[in-house]
């Protein structure tokens, strides 16, 4: 589905990851681990960019959510399927939301714990609520692959587990960056550790001892 062989990935002009060998196969749930600035986001962005070209059936939860603060939660979630309709339909829905679209989005909002928030503008939400909106957009988009950069970092631990499980149920293939190791072990079939600009390990979850993960975060 997605393959990098010996590639250098850069953020802007600086090369962040060199010599990347990485493959994502259908049905896998891969979590990237590493200190902040290690290059997880760079790998995710490169992966998304490549998938988007060849396999547009991909949902995304970007790092800063990529929400439009001036629009309502409903519209931000609707944007997940902006490619499902023509411009005319989308513009009409922007000015006067279709009841059918509201009915489609309400259950998604319920799933992420935002029921009743559809008409609120995103700029009035808390950090956690914004993140749930971004998750709702990805869920509403659906599809077979999800790419998410710290998709549950702003919600509390118990909620994070519930939401991660929900993502696991809805998407067949998942590539995430997480800082919470327990959460990573909970969802991942494979763990990828990134350290000092290189892939440090890339193994099935059960084969990664805690010591290896500990090494990632060592100075």
């Amino acid at each position, binding site marked *: 589905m997605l393959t990098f062989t010996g590639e250098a990935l850069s953020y802007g002009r600086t090369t962040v990851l060199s010599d990347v060998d990485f493959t994502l196969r259908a049905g896998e749930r891969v979590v990237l681990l590493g200190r902040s600035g290690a290059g997880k986001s760079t790998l995710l962005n490169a992966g998304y960019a490549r998938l988007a*070209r060849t396999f547009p059936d991909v949902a995304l939860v970007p790092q800063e959510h990529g929400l*439009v603060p*001036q629009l309502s939660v409903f519209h931000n979630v609707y944007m*997940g399927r*902006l*490619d499902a309709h023509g411009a005319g339909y989308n*513009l009409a829905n922007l000015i006067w939301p279709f009841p059918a679209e509201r009915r489609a989005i309400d259950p998604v909002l319920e799933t992420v714990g935002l029921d009743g928030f559809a008409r609120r503008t995103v700029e009035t939400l808390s950090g956690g609520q914004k993140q749930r909106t971004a998750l709702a957009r990805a869920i509403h988009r659906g599809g077979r692959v999800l790419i998410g950069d710290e998709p549950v970092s702003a919600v509390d631990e118990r909620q994070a587990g519930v939401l991660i499980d929900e993502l696991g149920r809805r998407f067949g293939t998942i590539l995430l960056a997480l800082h919470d190791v327990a959460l990573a072990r909970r969802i991942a079939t494979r763990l990828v550790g990134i350290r000092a600009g290189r892939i440090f390990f890339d193994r099935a979850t059960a084969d990664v001892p805690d010591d290896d993960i500990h090494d990632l975060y060592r100075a």
Partner: protein
Amino acid sequence: MTSTEPERPHRLGRFGRVGTALVFVGLAAMLLPFADLGLGRHDPWAELGRMATGFLSPDFTSIEALRWTAVLTAAFAICGVALGASAGFVLAPFYRHGMVRNLCIAIRSIHELFWAILLVQVTGLSATTGVLAIAIPYAGIFAKVFAEYLDEADARPAAAMPPRADLISVHFYARLPLAWREFQTYLLYRLECGLRSSAVLGFVGLPTLGFSLDTFFRQGMYGAVAAVLIIYYVLIGTMRLWMHRPLVPFYLLAAIAVMASIASPPMAPGALARFLTHDIVPAPLRSGDLGDFATWARFGDWLAALLAGQALPGLAATLVVAQLALVVAGLVALIGFPTTVRPVAGRLGAAFGHVALVITRSTPEYMLAYIALQVFGPSMLPAVLALGLHNGAIIAHLLGRQSAHLHESLRPDAPRGIVLYAYELLPRIYGSFLALCLYRWEIIVRESAIIGLLGIPTLGFHVDRAIQEIRVDRAIVLLIVTMLATMAIDWVSRRTRASILPGRLGRNAAAE
């Protein structure tokens, strides 16, 4: 190209900030002998006295007619700005394309009044002329400013859109909402400019406040002139009170209805076709055989004579007026700015300073020049004074806004009065001051050209004469010269600004 990059700050750095100002002052001093600054009237003070008496006793006898003129002024402004903003709104996403950008630069480098006198040839003294004269240059300005707002907005939401979403949907969902508030604020500000433009269009015969002003001035009815000015200030000053967002559709419909009610003299059919295929074609090409070399030789002679006889003298006069006005504007700003700062001018002085600046900057430069011309008679003096005062007041106002909190954060034992200004305020604002002057430079050149319509021999004078003689082809060439001059000044100004002050300054300074 790359090799010149590092050189630039060094080269201009040689002049330094004070040096840059001295270059402009020196240039103005050198141009002074070429400027016709004589008093056209023998006794301007007597005329001024009559005006002052009239102004102090405003005559509202024709208030009924004036009220309708005020409505017309607002209606022209609303329709023109709405049309211009709509066009700019559509053009803005494509502004990065060279063709769109150059088109916008070209249409906005020609003043509303020039558009008006050109359009009168096609659509007569009609609603269409007035609305288009505002809408066309404003479209170019709106496109540029809207495009800048879109570029400055957060790009991440658009990057998070589904890969195959169409561009129009992405634009309206993930780009436009992020810049929408800025659009609205700017639109309101532009409407204020539109009211000024609309009033000034009266000077070429459209039925707005400028027309009433002109009429009463010609008859020496200074009391009535005062009434027109008061109505004008009330219209501008209260705009933010009556222009509320929910009422916008109502105002727009009302303005369209008012426009539709204007009776205009009928134009002969096919005026547009005639204008495009006959009037604007250079005379030697119109009648001659285009395959014949002699035709092109005649065209060359025609062009050379036009350039040497009208364009160059007009351009020279325009630049003389502009450079002198720029220095006057700088002086007015340097004197005007501190009069609005309380620790410098005192409470009463600051209030007075504010009022004086508001009046001079909300009176269009063309109107000021017109009034100054009535006082001093025809020479470059009224033009220089009017442009200097108006632009200086705008610079002073923007400086005041930028440094609004400056004097609040001064040390507690800071001096007061003139010493405070010289030692604490001026050194801090000087960079902004210079940048704002350079911003206004291009605008002053454009305005110097247009003031020729009042009879001062700048480019506008020659354009007007060509139009009067029904030689539209010549007017077009002269307008192209005006356009190129404005663009050249804009280019020099941008490079100089970049070397003085990194970063951006108030956009309104550029747009006002």
